[in-house]
């Protein structure tokens, strides 16, 4: 199509990632454009604003090198992603071109990268328990198929290890359905990327993965499209090829920075901390592409990773994310310092879809009660630590001391586990019971009597 379209040499302004073109024929909103430099190199962009006076193009590869004499062509269509089953095992750059030296992808279809909203009526309820083998997730913040569960982390925390462990161990028990991993890196360092790649290769996951790489030194604006390419691929694999797809997006913080950069270049009225007012809607257009659809056997489960600037959970990026995703896994600097790995703070973490995915027939009948009890006891124990710091352990009542000890044991035995330790859900729950057994039975107010009689170690032994 680019052959027939007209080339314009009417660039009037270049500002940050944006190019303003004048006196064009009508150009569609969101249409794709190419900018050709006098030396023949080409850059791609997308129309952000169109009127009969001028058109604003956001250039993905950055505007460096573009001059007013450059030519601009509009391609007459919105950005599309060529997709095919052969993409599995391939490594692509942030703009979707292969960088692994392999052949070009022969498309089976070309899909609009912006996707479309799933009709809420067409969605199927996510309720298949995914066993990640990590106790703090399975036991306390259960992940289910079709969920979007981000990891809120901070710089220097091992969020990548958590994501990799999930990618390695995640399975739906008793099923052998086809699964795939779509991995989108946005602005992470080459070193971090290596780390992911090495692990994918070591475990053989690469065969079943599609990798999109936008590294720290790649154009920032490209980060706007990288996750969209990844999700378009994921949708194809999930809803056309019926696979269960796990999408890992890292790092959403870099994505949001790119969004802010464009907003600033367009001189938009900024929202909180300079991020654009439409960031919620924009993030929703990514996260909401997770889910299941009635009558389709595939699913998309998303694990976005974001580093909270200054470990501040009220920062707009984690804040808006938390309002869209179905919970969050929060990595804790405190636990990390104490050498407890994976350092997941269960108190601040949450899985909103947990209740749909647990219970008899799914995990075990006592799951909910046990996790509620652990939460309550752990929170109480942690509060007591503050008190102990002031008055010392001796001033505590017998009851309080039990809770304090529970909190310590919980971190050491339940939270702490090896990076290759794949715990079955029963193991996770049994560890929890062993820990809860240290608390007087009449204090286990969250658990039905019948479960205590069936699962409490004291009763198990006597039975």
């Amino acid at each position, binding site marked *: 199509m680019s052959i027939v379209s007209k080339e314009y040499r009417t660039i009037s302004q270049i500002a940050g990632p944006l190019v303003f073109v004048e006196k064009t024929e*009508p*150009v*569609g*909103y969101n249409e794709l454009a190419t900018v050709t430099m006098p030396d023949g190199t080409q850059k791609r962009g997308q129309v*952000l604003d*169109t*009127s*009969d*006076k001028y058109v604003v193009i956001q250039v993905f590869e950055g505007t460096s090198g573009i001059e007013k004499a450059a030519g601009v062509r509009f391609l007459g*269509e919105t950005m599309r992603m060529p997709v095919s089953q052969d993409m599995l095992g391939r490594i692509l750059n942030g703009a979707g071109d292969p960088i692994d030296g392999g052949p070009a992808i022969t498309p089976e279809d070309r899909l609009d990268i*912006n*996707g*479309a*909203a*799933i*009709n*809420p*009526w*067409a*969605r199927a*309820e996510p309720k298949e328990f995914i066993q990640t083998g990590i106790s703090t997730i399975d036991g306390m913040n259960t992940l289910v198929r079709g969920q*979007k569960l981000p990891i809120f982390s901070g710089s220097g925390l091992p969020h990548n290890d958590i994501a990799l462990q999930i990618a390695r161990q995640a399975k739906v028990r008793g099923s052998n359905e086809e699964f795939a991993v779509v991995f989108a890196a946005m602005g992470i360092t080459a070193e971090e990327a290596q780390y992911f790649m090495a692990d994918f290769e070591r475990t053989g996951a690469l065969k079943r993965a599609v990798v999109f790489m936008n590294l720290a030194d790649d154009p920032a604006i490209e980060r706007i499209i990288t996750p969209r390419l990844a999700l378009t691929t994921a949708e194809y694999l999930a809803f056309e090829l019926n696979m269960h797809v796990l999408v890992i997006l890292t790092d959403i913080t870099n994505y949001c920075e790119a969004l802010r950069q464009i907003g600033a270049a367009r001189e*938009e*009225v*900024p*929202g*909180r901390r300079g991020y654009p*007012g*439409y960031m*919620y*809607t924009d993030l*929703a*257009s990514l*996260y*909401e592409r997770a889910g299941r*659809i*009635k009558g*389709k056997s595939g699913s998309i489960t998303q694990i976005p990773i974001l580093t909270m600037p200054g470990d501040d*959970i*009220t920062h*707009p990026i984690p*804040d808006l994310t*938390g*309002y869209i995703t179905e*919970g*969050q896994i929060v990595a804790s600097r405190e636990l990390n310092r104490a050498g407890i790995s994976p350092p997941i703070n269960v*108190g601040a973490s*949450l899985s*909103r*879809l947990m209740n749909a995915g647990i219970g008899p027939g799914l995990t075990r009948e006592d799951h909910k009660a046990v996790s509620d009890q652990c*939460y*309550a006891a752990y929170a109480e124990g942690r509060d007591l630590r*503050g008190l102990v710091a*002031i008055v010392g352990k001796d001033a*505590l*009542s017998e009851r*309080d001391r039990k809770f304090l000890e529970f909190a310590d044991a919980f971190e050491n035995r339940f939270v702490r586990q090896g990076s290759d330790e794949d715990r079955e859900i029963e193991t996770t729950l049994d560890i929890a019971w062993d820990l809860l057994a240290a608390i007087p039975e*009449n204090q286990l107010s*969250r658990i*039905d009597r019948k479960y205590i009689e069936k699962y409490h170690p004291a009763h198990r032994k006597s039975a």
Partner: protein
Amino acid sequence: MAKQGEIHRVAGPVVTAVGISPRMYDVMQVGQEGLMGEVIKIAGDKTVIQVYEETSGLKPGEKVVDTGQPLVAELGPGLLGSVYDGIQRPLPVLMSSMGNFIKRGVSAAGLDHKKKWAFEPTAKKGDEVSPGSILGTVKEAYMVHKIMVPYGVSGKIEQLNDGSFTVDETIGVIGGKNVKMMQNWPVRSGRPFGKKLLPDIPLLTGQRVLDTMFPIPKGGTGAIPGAFGTGKTVTQQQLAKWSDAEIVVYIGCGERGNEMTEVLATFPELEDPKTGEPLMQRTVLIANTSNMPVAARECSVYTGMTIAEYYRDMGYNVSLMADSTSRWAEAMREISSRLEEMPGEEGYPAYLSARLSEFYERAGRVQNPNGTMGSVSVVGAVSPPGGDLSEPVTQNTLRIVRVFWALDSKLRERRHFPAINWLTSYSLYTSNLDAWYRANVAQDFPALRNWAMEVLQKESELQEIVQLVGSDALPDEQKMTLEIARMIREIFLQQNAYHKVDTYCPLNRQYTYMKLIKKFSELANKAVENDVAVDAIVGLPVRNRLAKSKFEDTIDHELEEIAKEMPIQFETLGEKK
């Protein structure tokens, strides 16, 4: 008066057109595909339109057609049980016409225009009627749908037919005008009513912390602000499921898709506790998820409110839940910033406060022109960024609403659900409602509530001391107060929405629980005076039994037993000593 113009500029959901001069808020068909939009600004020869559908590919020069009327909701039989998007397009219809994903350029009527409904007139030929008068009834699921005289029609009934009709067919003639069952109403204007009444009947929800501690009346307004994950949605869903309103309108405004799915999957399975019929058949759901077009999100609360008012006009009590009004406010902000308007606080438009108060003012218990009494109660969830209650949406909401259920992330972390903070929440309606509680539950109900609040208040004071010196340093009497407060918190305030027995607690049972805890407290204080150890009192089996009773199938019988058992067990304490 040109009826057709052309696109001048496209920037996201905001389209500017020239060559057309429509009225404000007229609905426009934009572009070759006829995307639906609404006029939100007129400046010189330019008309600014917010488009409810995705605008990718739209070009300057494409046509824009004025429909000449504002956005209206179709009101008539068939609303109940429906699932709509923000502009009243039924989602199941959209799915059958365009598949699993929402594409654009598809219009769908709010009501089924083919279905026939059996109309039974209650008015007679020759009756003098005016707008709002009831002409007859239609059985809609198990509800009685009253067909009312539409606005703009009045006079003598010249003809009124009995039989089966579609919503478009003429059922009669009034004052020379043909009348059908369906009426249209512009969603942005409130439907008229006779007069507002004082809201003095509680909206019962079966949630102990709400009904007893912070009640909302029928026709009242309430807000649930809280950081993410504190349980706003669960609380709202509990209200939708269990409140004793006849009709529920639930607006998922900028909601999560999967959460909407949960609502869609659970509501049809739930039984109405009063009639045993599926709950869905007295519910209207509006689902405009966060990734659906932002302009339709802005509109969804008005669509929902109009439907709620329509049922109010028939004399029903309607409860409307909006989850979340913050998303609605953000939609306003997003559109406003695309219009390059001068922003107010935190980028929200300066008219934020006016829009919020207009919306909540549409709530109320009213006397209808047709003599019936109906109400719309509104509960809006607010999602303050970072849990910061000083942000504009929360603040503007709190100035209007009279019930505040403060969700607390500290409580959530210890899995105290519903995580409604008993110290910061309030209901300004309690004094209006006390007379009702006295007459319908028990004389001492308000006194019991005050007693419980006092204990909790005292607990928070004592906690400060405990933080400094540890609980062992307190005298036994104060230790007992802490234990009683713990009982109020754990037994009464905590309620498990997912437990089949505990999820709903009728008001008289709430009263019994209060009464038993108070009784326990009195006996315990007496025992403490007699030097019985606090641990021994707390260790009484009856205390544990009371705590577990809320999960028992035979709960009411269990409570009777506990009431009998309690004084006996306390007596044994005295003996042991």
